[in-house]
């Protein structure tokens, strides 16, 4: 669990937290019991396991709560199969 902020940072209103959209290329994924790096190492726990099968018989991950994504890009970096990536969400109308 993240540490609770006990005091509001001075520049809190200047910092803009980015939001990301998660894209999963399901046919490339080799997820399931064997891999699941993106689910395990997502710092915001955006992804979860799913029961769905792809053509190769693996279980691609499912997006649990996309609003939590802060665009750190670690899922993209740690995916060995080039099957997941994030792009910045357009938040002009509010997220």
């Amino acid at each position: 669990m993240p540490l609770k902020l006990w005091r509001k940072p001075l520049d809190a209103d200047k910092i803009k937290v980015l939001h990301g959209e998660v894209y999963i290329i399901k046919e490339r994924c080799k997820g399931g019991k064997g891999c699941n790096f993106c689910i395990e190492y997502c710092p915001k726990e955006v992804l979860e396991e799913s029961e769905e099968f792809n053509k190769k018989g693996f279980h691609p991950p499912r997006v649990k709560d996309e609003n939590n994504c802060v665009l750190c890009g670690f899922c993209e970096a740690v995916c060995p199969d080039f099957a997941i990536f994030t792009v910045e969400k357009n938040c002009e109308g509010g997220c």
Partner: protein
Amino acid sequence: MSEELHPFETFLRKEMIPHIWCDGCGNGIILNSYLMALKDLNIDFNKVVTVAGIGCIGRVSGYTKTDSYHTTHGRAVAFATGVKLANPELKVAVISGDGDLFAIGGNHFIHAARRNVNLQVICANNFTYGMTGGQYGPTTPLDAWTSTTPYGNVEHPFNLIHLAAASGAVYVARWTTLHVRRLTESIKKALQKEGFSFIEVITPCPEIYGRYNKMRTGIDMMNWFRKASEIRNYSDPAKAEITPERIVLGEFVDIEKPSFGRLLHGMTAKVQEKMKRGNR
């Protein structure tokens, strides 16, 4: 799902993807960091040659859209030396495994490091010979079980960092596949350096190495890296041995030295000038 494309879509040979590596294998992460480094440095892909040897990781030469070279077993560094000396403008990166670079190709490696040939060597260390069925190799830790050491390994492993530093490499680093960001920064630094740089990447191999050693999934092996790794930048390479309890990571050597290519081409120019003037 959408029209959005993966950011590395244009860097990969699409007809070869998905790749053949097992689920939970870290080789894809190494390829990923290598492509990330090339993208961040904005290097022209026509000026990069990816040389790979034999082994699971050897297949990166087929997956990247740079010029690439899939060489014979153990001779990746030798072929790369030739490429670099023939055309010094090219950036030559060798991506190969521990069996290829240090078992059959050990001699090529130490002599390329001694001469300081301008190469970037990335070694994927999975502690075993993955493609041939998990025989023990020069980096298998003591007491580890493999298919040919069913009662535990009795040979001491190589400390690759110490070997590279002692042979004269100008940049030596070790990371695991869990430290993706640091690994990418390291590859970027190595690509910009003149001389022989060596990066050892410890990669999970749950199918072939892990299943004999009570780490059946990729996450089990990655969690071992997370638990055991210690970052000690510029510490003594001799003390950076890999044991089940402790994996020392970091940058170990970062020095400047004139490269073999520069010295050789300088000497050639000097002699040609001399010959032109007629006095030998």
